[in-house]
């Protein structure tokens, strides 16, 4: 782990302690409830924890982090609602029209789908948010790699 060095920052294994703290805390929480959840459930939770720690480390400063927090909260609410509404009869589902294949020729559109909150941005801001998003993603990936390495090595 000490041999790892971020390309951009000065040889530190962890340039973002806030992110690390939040992620590790979430991991701990997941582990404590790990006995009950399945592998996929755990994986989903860990992925969510990763994105959450990313978003919280940027806080409300960035548009993408705000959008990401909003998305995460909305999904969580939906999950909770789904859990409490278990007893409801199955609703008759109307077949949704098949999603049209959106031509991915417009790269800005593709980018907007990738970056959280991108649909509401204009091009200039989209580029800026993408840059910050990439930076944060790279940090998160580095952090997760460090965790995995430290666990598998020790």
């Amino acid at each position, binding site marked *: 782990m000490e041999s790892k060095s971020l390309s951009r920052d000065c040889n530190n*294994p962890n340039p973002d302690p806030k992110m690390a703290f939040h992620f590790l805390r979430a991991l701990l929480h997941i*582990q404590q409830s790990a006995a009950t959840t399945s592998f996929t459930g755990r994986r989903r939770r*860990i992925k969510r924890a990763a994105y959450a720690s990313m978003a919280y480390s940027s806080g409300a400063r960035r548009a993408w982090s705000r959008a990401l927090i909003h998305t995460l909260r909305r999904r969580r609410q939906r999950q909770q609602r789904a859990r409490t509404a278990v007893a409801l009869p199955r609703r008759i589902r109307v077949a949704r029209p098949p999603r049209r294949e959106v031509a991915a020729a417009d*790269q800005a559109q593709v*980018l907007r789908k*990738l970056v959280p909150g991108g649909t509401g941005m204009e091009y200039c801001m989209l580029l*800026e948010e993408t840059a910050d998003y990439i930076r944060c993603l790279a940090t998160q990936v580095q952090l997760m790699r460090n965790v995995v390495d430290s666990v598998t090595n*020790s």
Partner: protein
Amino acid sequence: MEAERSPGVGSGNSGTYTAEIAESLRFEEEIQSLIHPSFDASPATGGSFTALLGLPANQAVELLHEPGPGEPPASAAASSPVWQIRPGEQGAAPIRLPLGCCSSTFPSNAALVDRAVRFPVFAAEESPASSSGGGGPPLRLKVESPDSDSPPSLSIPSEKPQQRSAKRKEAGKSKTKGTTKKSKSTEKNNAVPKAEAEDINGGDKLPYVHVRARRGQATDSHSLAERARREKINARMKLLQELVPGCNKITGTALVLDEIINHVQSLQRQVEFLSMRLAAVNPRIDFGALDSFLPAECGPLQAANGRTGVALDPAPWSSSDAASAAGGVRRLPPQQFWHVDLVCPQQTSASWERDPHVLLNSGISLFGYDPANSGNSVPVNSNQLKTEL
């Protein structure tokens, strides 16, 4: 050039003054011829419009400082109508603008420099009768030749382009304008003033961006705004290219965008893959060892039992503190921790360089306070974590 200047001139606050200035600018040709004979006598210090304006400027200086000693009366006559309007400065012995600022205001005459460059006769810069003692080399501009014009002589000519570009007239504030303009101009090494996107005058409260049209390009407000926007986008694209590895060599926006998209997608896939690995390995995670990732002040991760929210209230910290089996563990108040964490993230990142084990002991230097106590508590902390787990 006249056309682009006149609107700015016309919109100046002092109508008469700006009108006069426009007039004086048209007198340029005459002035040039007037200056020319006297020009040879002056020391050649590099082409600049100061040579062009030097004479009328000096006229102004004369008028300002000591009404009397003169350059050719004809040029004085040509330039005098311009200077007569300056309130209270005619014949006033003390110059209104301080000397130091004048030298900085001088190079702001972007347009005038432009004109001066076009006049090859002005190979030398003149600073005759610099009663102010010849200020520093303010015009180290696109003309690429330091001018040692007398600062007060520059104050007056520096007014004109500022007014033109700034679309307002502030005699007293010309120094600030000049400073910013100079700093901007010195970056340009061509004789053409580029678009300046700055709040030119720090003193004035005008919020909009002043952009100067490039030579040979449309001066339409729409195209100017578009150009500014395009430049912004290009700057962001450059930033993105630096972030994404391997993007520097690619030319063309579409390919770069493709690369960026690929990079984002690959990063997201990596997160998913790593989360899968973590899920597989999760039961074996030893959170004590993982503490090394965190700044030591975070305290044991056990403290986070049952809390998934981000808001770290002091309450859970203190409760977990009490609940922690290790009595000797010393934890700093959470407010302090977060305050430090938020306030000086750079510090923390800098100190992550060390080996994690070293970090445990010396990581307290992250937070400037309480190094000694924390240093003792941290190793105890991790040990207790291991036992608790």
